[in-house]
């Protein structure tokens, strides 16, 4: 109990900050979903899409090239927060969007039509004010009651989309109600719904649930949950290592580096380091990606 006296001031500050955040803003209820292992084939395998033929999960950043023969790879110091695996994250809907949606719909929400549709119009369609203003502008005024009905139906369709997915979009059962509400609030802000910036909702996230969201919503778009560990030649031919192999293929620092900044990978029958095909997710923090690694360790991917 000696450590308590040393760190007590710091802990109290953290607790105070967390409390003030939860009281200072609208806070989601803390009803949490249990964290579960990622399962089954990747979303692009499910859709029978080839990695090279889709924009899903692509950021179009690929990180640095491999060093030339004889050159040493640039050193890089990871910058994880102390105690990152035990810290609760104070998040908003913008973070839920980042962890779950941005890999396909991009930071703007516009996606890459026609394969990935924009979220903007379906979100604007949930606002009574937006509908009424739009109809007035087009000279076809409608009553508030009718606009409310339209907005409600659009809201139901949007929630259905999160829960059930669509033909091309996966469902998101890993998101709990508070996350969905925070996400909806952020989507409205992204879509320019008037006043949405005042409606943002603060939520708290456990480290393993942060890792779970990244893995299920972003990594699992292209990486199958389980399968054989591909050799460098198979990687060259296009194999994507399953999630179950990543914690043995890489160390946590290498994993964090690969995801957030890019890191060369061995490819070919006579293995050589190459830049690789994996996109770089520079919008994820190192702590978040380290939590994805821990999540994959604590909840091993399943068939």
């Amino acid at each position, binding site marked *: 109990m000696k450590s308590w006296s040393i760190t007590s001031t710091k802990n109290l500050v953290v607790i105070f900050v967390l409390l003030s955040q939860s009281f200072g803003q609208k806070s989601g209820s803390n009803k949490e979903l249990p964290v579960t292992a990622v399962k089954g084939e990747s979303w692009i395998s499910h859709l029978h899409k080839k990695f090279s033929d889709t924009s899903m999960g692509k950021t179009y950043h690929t990180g640095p090239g491999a060093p030339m023969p004889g050159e040493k790879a640039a050193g890089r110091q990871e910058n994880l927060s102390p105690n990152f695996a035990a810290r609760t994250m104070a998040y908003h809907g913008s973070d839920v969007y980042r962890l779950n949606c941005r890999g396909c719909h991009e930071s703007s929400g516009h996606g890459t039509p*026609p394969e990935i549709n924009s979220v903007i*119009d*379906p979100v604007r369609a949930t606002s009574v004010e937006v509908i009424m203003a*739009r109809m007035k502008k087009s000279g076809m*005024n409608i009553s508030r009651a009718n606009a409310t009905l339209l907005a409600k139906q*659009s809201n139901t369709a949007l929630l*259905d*989309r999160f829960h059930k997915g669509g*033909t091309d979009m996966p469902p998101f059962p890993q998101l709990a109600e508070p996350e969905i509400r925070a996400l909806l609030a952020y989507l409205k802000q992204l879509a320019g719904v008037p006043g949405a910036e005042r409606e943002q909702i603060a939520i708290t996230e456990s480290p393993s649930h942060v890792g779970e969201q990244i893995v299920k919503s972003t990594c699992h778009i292209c990486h199958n949950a389980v399968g054989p560990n591909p050799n460098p030649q198979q990687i060259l031919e296009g194999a994507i290592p399953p999630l179950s192999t990543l914690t043995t293929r890489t160390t946590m620092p290498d994993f964090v580096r690969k995801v957030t900044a890019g890191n060369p990978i061995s490819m070919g029958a006579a293995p050589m380091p190459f830049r690789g095909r994996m996109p770089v997710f520079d919008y994820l923090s190192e702590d978040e990606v380290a939590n994805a690694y821990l999540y994959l360790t604590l909840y091993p991917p399943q068939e």
Partner: protein
Amino acid sequence: MKHNVLILIAGVTLMTLAASAGTISGQVSGVAGPSVVYVDTISGKTFPPSTQHPVIDQRGLVFQPHLTAVQVGTTVDFLNSDSVAHNVFWTSIGGNKKLAHNLGTWPKGEKKSFKFDTPGAVPILCNVHPEMTAYLVVAPTPYFATSDQTGNYKIENVPDGSYTVTAWHEGAKNQSKPVAVSGDAKADFTLSK
């Protein structure tokens, strides 16, 4: 002998039919793209319900076709072929806001049907995608036609008689004129927005 009589009867019947019905044709100018031309309500005359069952599809975030004309009493199927949810609503029929209707929002592969019992133009909208529009023109008689891109139209099998014929075009004012049909008749329209 019997045979010849039958042919004679058939021939006379055909000639009688040909003499009692004609076409109304002409051109709609002043506007770009297809227009709808129809014979207005004929007092004292009713028509058997239409057997048409046209489809207005939502595909690639566009209503297809953009313009549909039907006889009053026709049921139209609204289909969603996109992988996203669509909505269908209209704010009026023939300018009458009391006939505003919201068919709802539904996912891919499903359709909703609606029977249009009031004549008039219906602007079809999708609340989810505000750039989507289509027009349905509900004609009061079975005598109507959609023109080609340059405005040429032809309404066939119109019985001889005197009618009011109306031309409709998206965003333009309707124009009506009297037309006497005795055999083939001509009617040109110049519309303005």
